[in-house]
């Protein structure tokens, strides 16, 4: 297998830029860089596709050749928050960007049209007007990435978001355990789309991963993808229930081969939800898949991301592991609910210099 890394798409920008005076840096071709030779990596670049991942045939070689070393992954994951940070206007700008990545979510048994409408209102106006103005963000059209609800609440959300460009995402296909009959799960996807959902978050059958039944997993996800049609499909792997990071990686690869538009960590209902280690493993698989096929698959961590600092850590990971394309809602979402309020608090602190209170932010 030849590595086909497209270097142009990875980072590559100067390390320092922005409003602060950039320190002087060596000009290219200074004596410290006698020659710049490019290796075989640049010989065969895959065409980079902007479009949806069409999937590939099931490639079991790719699944079986996966090796994930847990300790090493955890060491790398642990230094992502310590190697990177953003301060002052950089932090404010990154947090504004984070808002646009949020799939603002409510997935509770006691959801009603009332609280879903409230959530949708917040999705349209995620930032207090005065904060938005102070940040110079009025022209940026800040809105969340999507609103994510159970199938039953899709019509309410669609109605509440009418006139906006915010899509409604439905958790369909037997969320959260995914153990109802396959036909019913497929029917649920059809029903959600019919009700106006433009994005579908499906759950995989964990048992297929735990028993190594990759054909079954592939067929299942592919069937969901077919059912989704034009709707974008996020495949929830429920990483906290897959036992090992190797399984997380294998499930990621099979889901992408089966045509997932996004791979997503968790339902929010598992004992362990999104972690940087899971995110790192999945991001690496996304990179591998892109190198092989040229298609960019999105990533969505979900569950337990409550703090602004926390979401920035995921953004560092995306930027450094996958590149800036993965800092846009097209390829990166964060499943969260209370996160938005914490981001608002941090932004208000940035504007006023005072620590902020949650009760001053309109609740979702």
């Amino acid at each position: 297998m030849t590595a086909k890394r497209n270097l142009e798409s990875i980072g590559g920008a100067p390390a320092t830029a922005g409003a602060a005076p950039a320190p002087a840096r060596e000009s290219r071709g200074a004596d410290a860089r006698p020659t710049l030779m490019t290796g075989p990596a640049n010989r065969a670049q895959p065409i980079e596709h902007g479009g949806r991942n069409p999937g590939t045939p099931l490639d079991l070689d790719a699944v079986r050749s996966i090796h994930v070393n847990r300790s090493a992954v955890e060491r790398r994951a642990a230094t992502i928050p310590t190697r990177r940070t953003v301060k002052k206007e950089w932090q404010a700008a990154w947090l504004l960007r984070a808002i646009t990545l949020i799939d603002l979510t409510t997935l509770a048994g006691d959801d009603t049209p009332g609280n879903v409408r409230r959530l949708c209102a917040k999705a349209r106006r995620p930032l207090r007007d005065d904060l938005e103005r102070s940040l110079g963000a009025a022209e940026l059209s800040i809105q969340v990435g999507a609103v994510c609800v159970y199938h039953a609440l899709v019509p309410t959300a669609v109605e509440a978001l009418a006139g906006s460009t915010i899509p409604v995402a439905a958790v369909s296909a037997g969320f959260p355990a995914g153990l109802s009959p396959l036909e019913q799960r497929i029917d649920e996807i059809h029903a959600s789309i019919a009700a106006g959902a433009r994005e579908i978050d499906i759950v995989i059958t964990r048992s297929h991963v735990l028993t190594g039944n990759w054909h079954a997993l592939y067929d299942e996800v592919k069937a969901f993808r077919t059912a989704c049609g034009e709707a974008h499909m996020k495949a929830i792997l429920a990483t906290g229930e897959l036992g090992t990071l190797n399984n997380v990686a294998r499930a990621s690869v099979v889901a992408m081969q089966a045509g997932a538009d996004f791979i997503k960590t968790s339902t929010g209902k598992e004992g362990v939800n999104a972690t940087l280690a899971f995110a790192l493993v999945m991001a690496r698989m996304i990179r591998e898949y892109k190198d092989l096929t040229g298609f960019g698959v999105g990533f969505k961590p979900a569950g337990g991301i409550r703090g602004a600092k926390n979401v920035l850590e995921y953004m560092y990971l995306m930027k450094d592991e996958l590149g800036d394309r993965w800092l846009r809602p097209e390829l990166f979402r964060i499943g969260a609910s209370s996160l938005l309020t914490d981001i608002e608090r941090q932004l208000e602190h940035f504007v006023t210099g005072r620590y902020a209170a949650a009760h001053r932010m309109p609740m979702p």
Partner: protein
Amino acid sequence: MQPLTGCQCPNDMSSVAEIFESLEYGPAPESDKEALSWLGKHERVFGHFIGGHWTEPRETFDVSNPATRALLARVSQGTASDVNAAVAAARAALPSWRALTPHARARWLYALARGVQKHSRLFAVLESMDNGKSIRETRDIDIPLVARHFYHHAGWAQLLDAEFPGYQGVGVVGQIIPWNFPLLMLAWKVAPALAAGCTIVIKPAEFTPLTALLFAELAADVGLPAGVLNVLTGDGDTGKLIVDHQDVDKIAFTGSTEVGRAIRRATAGSGKKLSLELGGKSPFIVYDDADLDSVVEGVVDAIWFNQGQVCCAGSRLLAQEGIATKLEAKLRARMETLRVGSSLDKAVDMGAIVAPVQLERIRGLVRQGVDEGARMWQPSWACPTEGYFYPPTLFTDVAPSSTIAQVEIFGPVLVSMTFRTPEESVALANNTPYGLAASLWTENINLALDIAPKLKSGVVWVNSTNLFDAAAGFGGYRESGFGREGGREGMFEYLTVERAAAEDATAKSATANGATAGGTTSEHRSRPATTAQQPPIDRTPKLFIGGKQVRPDSGYSRQVVAPNGDLLGEVGEGNRKDIRNAVEAAHAAYRTWSKATGHNRAQILYYIAENLAGRGEEFADRIARVTGADAASATREVDTAVSRLFTYGAWADKYDGAVHSVPIRGVAIAMNEPIGVLGIACPNEFPLLGLISLIGPAIATGNTVIAVPSEPYPLSGTDFYSVLETSDVPDGVVNIVSGAKDALAKTLAEHDDVEGTWYFGTREGVKAVELASASNMKRTWASWYARDWLDARHGEGREFLREATQVKNIWVPYGE
């Protein structure tokens, strides 16, 4: 960029919208305020810290920040009188420091650990400014490890009497540390020394003295008794004054192999204990079933940690051929996302190179690499220009014969080579004079645990790299130095066996065991005329090499004369070529003997004892006739020798390693590995027991041996080879070359393929052996002190086993 009108915020708000689109990282500076304030408090000029006081600054030189070139402070160049004063202060403080209870010393170490933690950010910032390394590293790695080291050694201080009975602190120690981990190297040196009850004169590197000075202030603040810790600043000249000082009992040095070699020579014959942690060109081996994305991060932590200025940096990437191209592509992609910049920026991966001279060295070697035809690659971004920066650099198509594959670059430069099989990976990994560390990556535990013991290095990291902890020893094989820092093995570097009185063996040797005279002679003697009907059959002791009795290459023999003047026999006059042949035989034997099981080696040692005991009377008679000892003491020597062989038969399967408690999910396995091929020059006294006391521990632990038997009484040694021949000892495991001891010992010590030399004889001989050993930095154990070989407390046991082995720490993180 127009600021919004009415904005109350000092920041330029319009940039938020720009950054929202660009999503660049911005500056994230750590404040240098407190560090500058501390420097200001000292008016940015420092004297030495001697005897609890600061001296007047004199002969100062500049210390600057390599990331900004800004002058930080001026410090004093330590002179001979400064060194004399510091050593005198340490000597004066020694008796009362040594007399403290272990618990009292533990309290001091605990206070230092707490002090480092309390001022951790000041230490981290100051270190970053002084050295140029990133604040992330000083904050998250260097300083926490410093505190950890003092905590751990507070523990050793507390347990000293219980865990090291019969040992005491070596005395006044001189310590010379490098600039790459200034405070961490101080901790590695100071903590075990204090725990062992030593007093200290330490010299930080001239580029990076500031945190050592801050530490001296901390020591004063916590009330460490005056003179226990003395900090002298200065360059290599000051270091040399410490090394050469007559009243220093031990030198501990971390730095280049070149300087380490000079220190080995300078201290030869001085009786100073020595530990050296030197350079490396450590392999980073990647097998085709490794987690390649994690490997890439491992490389980042190996060679782009501290700008590659790490003695154990994984600087030689050895990738299995089938995955090499893919791995290199992944590395290039990762290199593009590394960030180099101000050392106080909290979001950089790499800071500045310590000094212009080091930057020039890196540039020169990189140019040489390109000139020699290797392919060089650097990321597309550029380094800042205001300080001394160098970008991460990858060389591919590198041959083992190219300069950059052999020389320690000490910069962020990785050279990459490929291998085909595990066997070839070991050959390439070991194809270096160094042996500090190695990193190996595979998901196959069978492979990992097979390869780790085969690597010639003091540390092996499995699926990880650059892991350090106070509980695990760190130190090298080969020309990467000797001695360990950290763990139980590290404590021994600052301890010495308590002996009642050290006597010079030179005077005693001839009379040991009640012997009165006799020995080999150059004066010609004739055999006494015999009255028997026929003469005795002439016996010809030969050399014993590779399991065969061979005539000496020289074709000469030396006569052995009884105390009464009678000619007792003639032994071969071994020479350089005999040594050469014996070393080759020992190497051939080492391949299997070092892998033989402890049980197997034990059986052979017991069998030697059995066969020696069967000929006990003959051996006793020989000792008596040769040395003039009385029959009872000759018999006692033989009996003790038999018992000693039993001792090492017993030890052969019991000299276990350890599993260190390191703070990871995993284990650090401390394995006692044989040194290799050992040259052993036996004491003159106790011609049989001396020989057996030394070859016993050597072969019990898996070494193979070239022994030079007692020079005046070699016949016990030559008699002994017939015992070896009948005891299933594999050919070449023990080789015996008789002749002029000092000359043969020197040849052994000079031999680049001998890994260790033991010598028991005169002070001049010790000096010659230690001097010659510097050629390949082989381990030496050389003594001119008389030793009571009959006394088991001094003639056998762990001290001998420790000298016969070196500890390899294998770090194995686990978890699926």
